[in-house]
């Protein structure tokens, strides 16, 4: 079933992706085709089959919790688009 433009805009909003009206139209088309293809999975009976999240089921990997040097602050801040003193500067979150 083809997606509607509203559905595409809703997904884009969940993903915080600013899309142009042309992109909304193009993705509506392409995503509908791709999602259609996914229907092929219904041919496989998965009654009682557990899901796989990771291939080899490693669990509870632990290491000693030891203090060690952290990242260099000036190196980290050098990659930040906006800084102020020792901080990353962001826009006001609440108006």
């Amino acid at each position, binding site marked *: 079933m083809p997606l509607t433009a509203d559905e*595409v805009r809703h*997904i*884009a909003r*969940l*993903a*915080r*992706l*600013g*899309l*142009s009206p042309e*992109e909304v139209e193009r*993705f509506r088309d*392409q*995503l509908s*085709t*791709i*999602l259609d*293809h*996914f229907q*092929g*999975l*219904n*041919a*496989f009976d*998965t009654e009682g*089959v*557990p*899901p*796989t*999240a*990771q*291939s*080899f089921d*490693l669990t509870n*990997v632990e*290491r000693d919790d030891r203090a060690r040097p952290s*990242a*260099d602050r000036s*190196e*980290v801040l*050098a*990659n*930040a*688009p*906006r800084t102020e003193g020792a901080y*990353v500067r*962001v*826009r*006001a*979150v609440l*108006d």
Partner: protein
Amino acid sequence: MSSSGPSADVFAVLDLPAHEQAARLRAGDLTARQLAEAALARVHAQDASLGAYITFMDEEALAQADEADARLRSGNAGPLTGIPIGVKDLLSTKGTLTTAASRMLEGFRPIIDCTVVARLREAGAVFVGKTNLDEFAMGSSTEHSAFAQTHNPWDLARVPGGSSGGSAATVAAGGVPLSLGTDTGGSIRQPAALCGILGLKPTYGRVSRFGVIAFASSLEQVGPFGRDAEDVALLLQAIAGLDPNDATTAPVPVPDYREEFARGIEGLRVGVPRDFFVEGMEDGVRQAVEDAIAVFERNGAVVDRDVALPTVSAALPVYYIIAPSEASANLARYDGVKYGFSYHDAASMWEEMEQTRGRGFGDEVKRRIMIGTYALSAGYYDAYYLKAQKVRTLIRRDFDAALSNHDLLLTPTAPTVAFRLGAKTDDPLAMYLNDLCTLPVNIAGNPGMSVPCGFSEGLPVGLQLIGRPFEEATLLRAAHAYGTFTDWHLRRPPALASDGAGA
């Protein structure tokens, strides 16, 4: 290059496999500095027509080469000391631009080396540059790069495959003997096949992902490209094994891969799963792969041509639900606040973030974030993501069954030879179909490898070897043996017009 550049003799050494280059370095026939200068001269000269690199690392490479020479002089050299290597630009290199081929990370300089790069530094390798890829490793042709167009050295009008297309092209063209790629759904094996070289995707958990820019965390692995099995073994040997910084690396000992070569393939039980010979596969590809299987049989392998892996037909939808779902979570970190591209000209914080992501990501990345977000969203999670994870279990079971009475599976690596640039960029599904034979292996987690096995229409064809978890040694041993029975891996593409001296 000018007459003061490296001599033809040095270029001739650069054409050798890495293990032979290392022997020449140890014998003192040339210095690591001379070899690095030759590699740099060639990759620079070739790049006008090849487009394999995003960032060159000349200064650092020469410094590493000088250190390598000091180690060689003091008898402290390992098998990779002084060997020029290309590094996919998805792998963090401390202080050196690391872009993932995305505008989103233009100008980004990591504060760490990823574990595999750190290990190669310790081994004395020489990094010539960061190679081109599909943006965030999402693609099968390296056409989804924000910065460069990589061409296939066998035919410059064709794609090198992807996503590790730059790493494959530079090794095939003779710029470096070895390179690193990553493989999430075929991104090492498919470009290796399309460029006529070898490439290996290790078992999930065999190689550390620490410091590798994340795309799909449950599927991807770092792995080597090379021009013969011994070189691929050498590079895997250097990067494999437990890493305290990556909790998904497995506590499984790493064997000496080259020691296993002597065992040969006599009595090796080889399975050929029919389900991999998919509809739409090119006849020339099918023929080359059939011929390769016959070579195994003639040389003592026991070939079973009746292996069933019926869930392979589910691999494409499973992959294109799971990988984009993981990507949509992994790529949530690109918000324009801490690093990378940042759009500043909007009315609010949320609008800035949406504009940052809308402008910073390319089409394919946005498409996958959208698919993943949809598959994980309320009301669709069970039908898509959970269903895909359950079918993933069925695919794993199929591989376990097929490999319970076979040591190795042989299949085509890709259904086609290298296709023309632009042929599939407007049709995402057609592009995805090129990975049909490689995707199932990432979903199951097993190791896979591509080995050159012939030509179709003048373009290379790859044979895929699939093994049991953590049995890369079997793949490498079989690839090495195959390389002694045939010489497909020795075929080199025509010299590039821009090759310069000694190509």
